[in-house]
């Protein structure tokens, strides 16, 4: 349910994204309206080609709409310059991708420090903040590892630490568990739920797995460039509870709220 309350973080109205292919105009988004309140965990579902990724890219200020309006934190971003959009991405948004998108050869701490380079953070506190963010995602003992020295789940944790290090308003996750097996998927989902609840960061997560979407508080379904369904999750699934300690790897323990075994198949 979209309710027009004052604390909407994302307010999208009649959003359109059209491509001219020859004489034809193809709409990737055809009038999407959506409001996301602060602290929500929204799963966006849809088949491939439904326009869900285009919507994410526009909300993530990586792409511009061809029509409609988009307000982030009460500010209209559709008319911003390229530099202003860079700043918005840096300060207000965090990204988590399916393929982690870490920088090659860089140590975990350096990866997480990259957004802080561009935010003009003082050099003295950068590393401290990066280490703190890595501890929060349970990688206290992997601070100096490079991507090639880490598992997929660990790499995705580094990506989440990088996304959260600037304390963004919104975390955008594009199929964050798409490349992970079922056990690690649960770990990552638990981490996202925890971040959502403990840090209060609003999360938008694209997925096409029903039981991954069930971990969110709200599910929006997109098809053919339009929102076709939008519902609150009544029976929210808790991802396998995690014990996260500062200096040790994640230890999964069975959670009481878990509804059966997850059936995640690789994308």
């Amino acid at each position, binding site marked *: 349910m979209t309710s027009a309350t004052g604390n909407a973080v994302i307010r999208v109205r009649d959003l359109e994204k059209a491509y001219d292919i020859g004489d034809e105009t193809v709409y990737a988004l055809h009038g999407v309206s959506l409001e996301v309140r602060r602290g929500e965990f929204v799963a966006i579902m849809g088949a491939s080609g439904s326009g869900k990724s285009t919507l994410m890219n526009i909300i993530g200020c990586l792409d511009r709409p061809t029509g409609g309006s988009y307000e982030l934190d009460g500010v209209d971003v559709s008319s911003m310059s390229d530099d202003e959009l860079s700043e918005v991405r840096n300060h207000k948004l965090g990204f988590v991708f399916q393929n982690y998108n870490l920088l*090659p*050869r860089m140590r975990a701490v350096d990866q997480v420090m990259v957004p802080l380079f561009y935010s003009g953070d003082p050099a003295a506190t950068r590393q401290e903040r990066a280490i703190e963010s890595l501890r929060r995602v349970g990688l206290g003992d992997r601070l100096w590892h490079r991507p090639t020295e880490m598992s997929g789940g660990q790499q995705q944790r580094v990506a989440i630490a990088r996304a959260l290090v600037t304390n963004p308003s919104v975390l955008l996750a594009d199929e964050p568990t798409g490349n992970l097996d079922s056990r690690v998927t649960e770990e990552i989902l638990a981490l996202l739920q925890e971040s959502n609840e403990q840090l209060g960061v609003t999360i938008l997560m694209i997925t096409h797995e029903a039981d991954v979407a069930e971990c969110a508080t709200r599910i929006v379904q997109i098809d053919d460039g339009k929102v076709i369904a939008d519902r609150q999750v009544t029976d929210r699934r808790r991802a396998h509870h995690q014990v996260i300690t500062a200096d040790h790897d994640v230890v999964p323990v069975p959670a009481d709220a878990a509804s059966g075994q997850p059936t995640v198949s690789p994308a």
Partner: protein
Amino acid sequence: MSPIDSLRVAYDALTAHLLRTILAMLGLIIGVGAVIALLAVGRGSQDDVARNIASLGTNLLTITPGASSQGVVRAAAGSRPTLTYEDAQAIATPGQADFVADVSVEQVIGVQIVVPGGGNLSTRAIGTTDRYPVVRSTPLTEGDFFTDEQVRSSALVVVLGSSIAQQLFGNDSAVGQPVRISLGRTGVTFNVIGVMASRGGTALGNVDDRVLVPITTMSKALVRFRAPGGTFVSSIQVQASSPEEMALAAASIGELLRQRHKVTEDDFLVQSQQDALDAASSVARTQSFLLGSIAGISLVVGGIGIMNTMLVSVTERTREIGIRRAVGARRRDILMQFLVEAVLVCCVGGLLGAATGIGISLLIDGREVLGQVMHARLTADAVVLALVVSVGIGVFFGFYPASRAARLRPIEALRYE
């Protein structure tokens, strides 16, 4: 992003592909090294020329036959003999020309020398006066030069250049030996009275293989032809009383010669050593400019190599650019990142190139290459120039790849496989 951060990122990126970075630098290293080494060699040969000319005697004026005109026909300079021994004598006569300290003449003809053991030796004979050793500042190693008296009496005496003496008599003393010099069918036996010190080959030719005879003897005994105007000479050497009075001396001599030749327009040319020095060093300058230009081309080629490598690097790191843009890098952050990388490559390449160039210069300085002693003079300005140019190359050839990286749209860069 602060400059220090940019440098660190650039350093990491460059060391990640160390071999590629070094290969990209190589062109620049060679280019900068070549520019510095060739400029040093050029400067060294300029010095050589200057040294040679200075050693021929300062405050020396050389008078050569100039263009003469007969009616409307104007001949090229030096094409017709206009200067005579008598002109030189007039210049030397006190009260005729001012600021003149010493005068000598030189008339050069090709002769054969009969070698005592058999066979002939082709060389050049210089007909001159007793003032030659003073004016040309060349001392003798053995015996004496001919005297004023011997010049006046057309004595059959000869002074040998050092290499001729070596060829004719080996290590034996030449003084007192008879030498037969012939011009055409005329052969005359001369008595060796001295041997000149070696001057070595210079930019102006080697004088060690010449023989020196009195001008009067050359005219009477060898050439055996006396033109109505007097004894022709190919040049007159005048030593001015001081370097400051060279111009005054030249003017005074000019006036006297115009009077004697009864012309209004000069049919002779008065040149100072400075003129010769200027001419020779302008040749040397042109030479080193040409050498430098050729080396400069290799710098440009080096720059293109760097641009190529940077373009490959940008394409290869498209995803990285996308990621950086996604987490907040602005276009100019990306531009700076790649520009700093290119400039860093060029700085390091330039420094290595400068070290190479300096090394080569030091290596060849004073060494004999192809029978000639090479001199190389390193100057700070050449090194600084080469370094500045290599940084410039970094900016120039790094800008296009960097701006291409900065222009990438974040969403497309992120999706790049």
